[in-house]
């Protein structure tokens, strides 16, 4: 739909050319990963690359036999817990933040951002000490809590830009109708913000699902996540690229489902509030 008058052929051609280059750049490694997962260990590394080969799906069956399903379950638990925590904490905070003014609001916003600034390698030891102290080491909840440092500020920032676009008159009308602040949030703000909540939830899910270092440090036997499992596969003296590729491909599925189902929501959700 090049709805604009005067959009020249050259411009559309340029756009198409750019898009095809961009999309190939983006998709090619994923395609390669997918191909690698159905090759043999040697085939995956062969030069010149094998384009025609007998696909070998044993890597996928090994996902089940080698106990990776547990890490999928753990990752799902952690990511979903994190999404719930982020939303439960972040939504009221973001709402409150948009209904503040002046210095307090500025300072809190900056504080939120600064939460992410400590380099991870430096806070790993304190975090480990902290979670050991409260007895949460090697539990999904510890990872979900630690992920809050990444996801909560991000979620609040995205929600704030959106909430700000909801007129304050609506709050006030609801207050006059007899609502408490929580009711205002529940019956007015949240229903309006539903697409945005979906997008933020998905992005939070993906970040939590993908995170490696914190998940690695805070868990061991009982709560290993998928990225940690992938990394551990590249073990000493054995390098099983098809298996790594297969697990990686399978690990995309849950996040992919979210993105696929809610891709429209993401953009429209982020979009409605971003510029106001």
């Amino acid at each position, binding site marked *: 739909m090049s709805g604009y008058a005067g959009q020249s052929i050259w411009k559309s051609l340029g756009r198409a050319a750019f898009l095809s280059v961009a999309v190939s750049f983006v998709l090619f490694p994923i395609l390669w990963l997918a191909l690698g997962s159905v090759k*043999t*260990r*040697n*085939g995956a*590394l*062969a*030069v010149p690359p094998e384009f025609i080969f007998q696909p070998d799906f044993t890597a996928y069956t*090994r996902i089940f*036999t*080698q*106990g990776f399903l547990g890490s999928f379950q753990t990752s799902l638990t952690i990511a979903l817990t994190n999404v719930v925590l982020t939303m439960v904490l972040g939504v009221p905070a973001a709402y409150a933040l948009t209904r503040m003014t002046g210095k307090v609001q500025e300072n809190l916003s900056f504080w939120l951002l600064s939460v992410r600034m400590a380099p991870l390698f430096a806070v*790993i*030891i304190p975090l*480990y*000490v902290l979670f*050991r102290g409260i007895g949460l*080491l*090697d539990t999904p909840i510890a990872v979900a809590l630690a992920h809050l440092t990444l996801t909560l500020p991000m979620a609040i920032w995205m929600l704030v830009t959106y909430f700000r676009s909801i007129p304050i008159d609506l709050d006030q009308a609801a207050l006059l109708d007899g609502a408490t602040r929580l009711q205002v949030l529940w019956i007015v703000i949240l229903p309006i913000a539903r697409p945005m909540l979906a997008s933020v939830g998905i992005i939070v899910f993906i970040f939590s699902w993908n995170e490696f270092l914190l998940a*690695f*440090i805070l868990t*061991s*036997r009982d709560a*290993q996540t998928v990225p*940690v499992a992938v*990394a*551990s*596969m*590249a*073990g*000493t*003296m*054995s*390098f*099983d690229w098809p298996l790594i590729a297969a697990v990686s491909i399978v690990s995309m599925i849950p996040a992919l489902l979210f993105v696929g189902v809610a891709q429209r929501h993401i953009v429209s959700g982020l979009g409605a509030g971003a510029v106001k």
Partner: protein
Amino acid sequence: MSIHFKQRALVAACVASFAASPALAQTEINVVGFGAGFAWADLFGATGAEKTQKLLDFEKEHDIVVNMEFADEDVARQKVLLDLVNGTGDYDLVMLGSDGAVQTFSAAGYLEALGPYLETAPDLFDPAKVYPPFLEANTVAGELYALPYYSFGAGAVYRKDLFDKYGISEFPKTTEEMATALQTLKDGFAADGITDVYPLTMRGAPGEEPSLDLNGFVYAYAGYPAWFEGGPTTPEEIKASKAQPIFTGDFKEGFSTFVNWSREYGPPGIAGHTWVDMMNLYAQGKAAILFPSAINAFAGIPSSEVPEVKEFSAFAPSPAGPSGKVVQSFWTFSVGVSAFSKNKQEAYEVLAFLTSEDVMRDFAEVIGWPYTTYPSIMHSPTLTDKWPTEMLDQIEASFYDADPHYFPYIPELTEFMDHIGTAASSAISGAQTIDEALDELQSWATERMDRAGYYK
């Protein structure tokens, strides 16, 4: 009567299952190791995830549950460190490498000295049956801190077909001959227009891992562990003689050879290569020689789909340097008991079991490489059925030939290995000249030793 009997049997069964079920009564021993599949293939099956009958039997007999956790070597160490630094004691047994972790962790007091325990499970582990250098590699200041799980010495694996093709009749015995052979191969490839096979594959990535081989070169050229004046290898010796680092001195020749060979004869990406790349390249038939950590070639051969690699790969002892000592690459995977373990006795029992002759035999069976920690296994059909006796003898000789102390055994070892490896990587990649890299290494080392208080 029969009914009566049945009832009794039922009750007995109930009692038995009840007795077996409360996990609380059992001691759990947690082990962290490097990489799934390889290290514990004998105990956790080919998939590395399911316990074998042998392990289940052991657990039942000793009333212990063994929990395994795997991670990539570098990251696993990070976690072990956190566990140890905080005295958490979550891991009872930790896997270690003899190129730093044993020295460092024992110096920090994180490892339990095993002397007192050796007697307690003699039926499981008998140190007298193990190759002595592997025990020595885990001994720091006279105390044994870990038992060898899997170990190797130096050697070369090469492609006999390529050697024959270019008229090299036997594998070089000295580094000088080796240089000539490499050049012959290089010229030969060039003449035949072969651009994707390299005379040599080694590892030159930054970090400690490649230093293992690099220091083998240094040892062969200098004739001693040339890190400090006079070649001391323990903190006490260094302190006694106030020996200064000499990375721009005797260290240089071996370092330069390693760097130059990597640049001249190695694959183009060698400055970033670790064991994975080294192994993959050999397995893909892209290198004529893998050296001096021959084990990495054996790791790649079984899965290789290049017929020549399978058919014509041969082992040769590591060549000797100008000093007469051979180029070293010696390492043991070892397992130690955490000083913070709450069940040290049980932990030791598991450790003894893990490194026992019986388990190691299974291991050799499963993994199929010509290496083991027990002479008895080396000479048994487990290996002799698979490999030529001559090769096994040569490999055994490399164990005895090895000087585990071919680099110093100081607490700062890992740190030194890291800096040395990074300096080599820099020089190979051309980011620095050899002299620049060594100068920087020298001044860092001097300051570091100072800071650690060696010269007070």
